[in-house]
């Protein structure tokens, strides 16, 4: 190879990135499909606990995975993908909840009666249970935002306090103190509601 040839080949050297890009893209898509299979249910439950509407929750899950698709190149940098995904869907549902109008409590009762498991229960029992759950959820809605969020996330058994802290972007001790305050406030609200009846 002459000197000029060497110079030209140095200038016009095209890295073998086209193939590697394609391969990386395929790998990222496969990884994304695996994430959907693994965590779609968890994300749906997180979304439903805030939005309380099946179709809205499903939309939120879809939007979360679309965001992941947009940032699929950085999937390898994520340490805990489960917490990362929950954080994404949590931000989405909070944003949607903020934008949407407050749903009336009657909607919650109807929706819960439709969604809750009702094996071996009469129609009357189902309606009564749905009413009770809707009442509890109305009390939860009256809590301050910080305490409410911690209380709702603490209901997920698969989330530890460290993971809740990671989702909310606060320290673990803040999670504990907020949870303590939330329980106290919740007890007060439930007592107040009972005394009014």
């Amino acid at each position, binding site marked *: 190879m002459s000197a000029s*040839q060497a110079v030209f080949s140095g*200038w016009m050297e095209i890295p073998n990135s*086209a193939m590697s890009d394609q391969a990386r893209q395929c790998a990222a898509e496969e990884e994304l499909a695996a994430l959907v299979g693994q965590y779609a249910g968890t994300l749906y*439950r997180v979304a439903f606990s805030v939005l309380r509407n099946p179709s809205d929750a499903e939309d939120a899950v*879809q939007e979360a995975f679309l965001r992941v698709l947009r940032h699929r190149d950085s999937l390898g940098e994520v340490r805990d993908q489960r917490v990362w995904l929950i954080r994404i869907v949590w931000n989405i549902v909070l944003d949607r909840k903020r934008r949407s109008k407050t749903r009336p409590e009657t909607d919650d009762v109807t929706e819960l009666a439709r969604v*809750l498991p009702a094996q071996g229960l009469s129609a009357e029992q189902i309606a009564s249970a749905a009413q*009770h759950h809707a009442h509890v959820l109305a009390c939860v809605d009256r809590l301050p935002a910080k305490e409410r969020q911690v209380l709702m996330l603490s*209901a997920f*058994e698969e989330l530890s306090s460290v993971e809740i802290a990671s989702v909310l972007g606060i320290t673990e001790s803040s999670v504990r103190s907020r949870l303590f305050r939330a329980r106290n406030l919740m007890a007060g609200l*439930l007592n107040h509601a009972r005394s009014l009846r």
Partner: protein
Amino acid sequence: MKYQGQDDLSNDSQLGSAEATLRLIASLPAPAGLEERVQAGLRAAPRSGRVLAWPAALSLDSNWMRAAAAAAIVFVVAGGGWGVYAHVQPGQSARGVAVPPHVAAPAGGFSNSGAMRTPNTLNGPLAPHPATARPPAKASVKGTARTTQTPLRPGKSGVANKAVPPPVAPAAK
């Protein structure tokens, strides 16, 4: 009668039932076919960008093709530079003062016919010279009493300088 412990127990049971509600909602199963729908949505989503592949017929495997491409790039860059140099001559400056073109009067309007307007402040009001002021009028009839007319003084109004009528002469015997 209610005791403190009773209240605590009641609070705990209520709180427990509330947390059970939250746990129940948190453990609701996802609807059937959720994953397939999400996968389908991801497949239908528009992709952000694609890298265009170089045509296989124009692959840069051969050295002569690389040399030709490099020569073409050099030619284009040099030609562009020469084109810029040929069109822009250094030291070109304006040779005269730009005069705004004469704007004709609009149709139906009046023109100034080339007359130059002079400001009024150049020919201001002139004060009368004291030498050219009119002398006081003499008595027309001899022997009559002098009028008490006073000369005009500048700055006085005409009302102040009004002439006093002469006294009536005695009748001749």
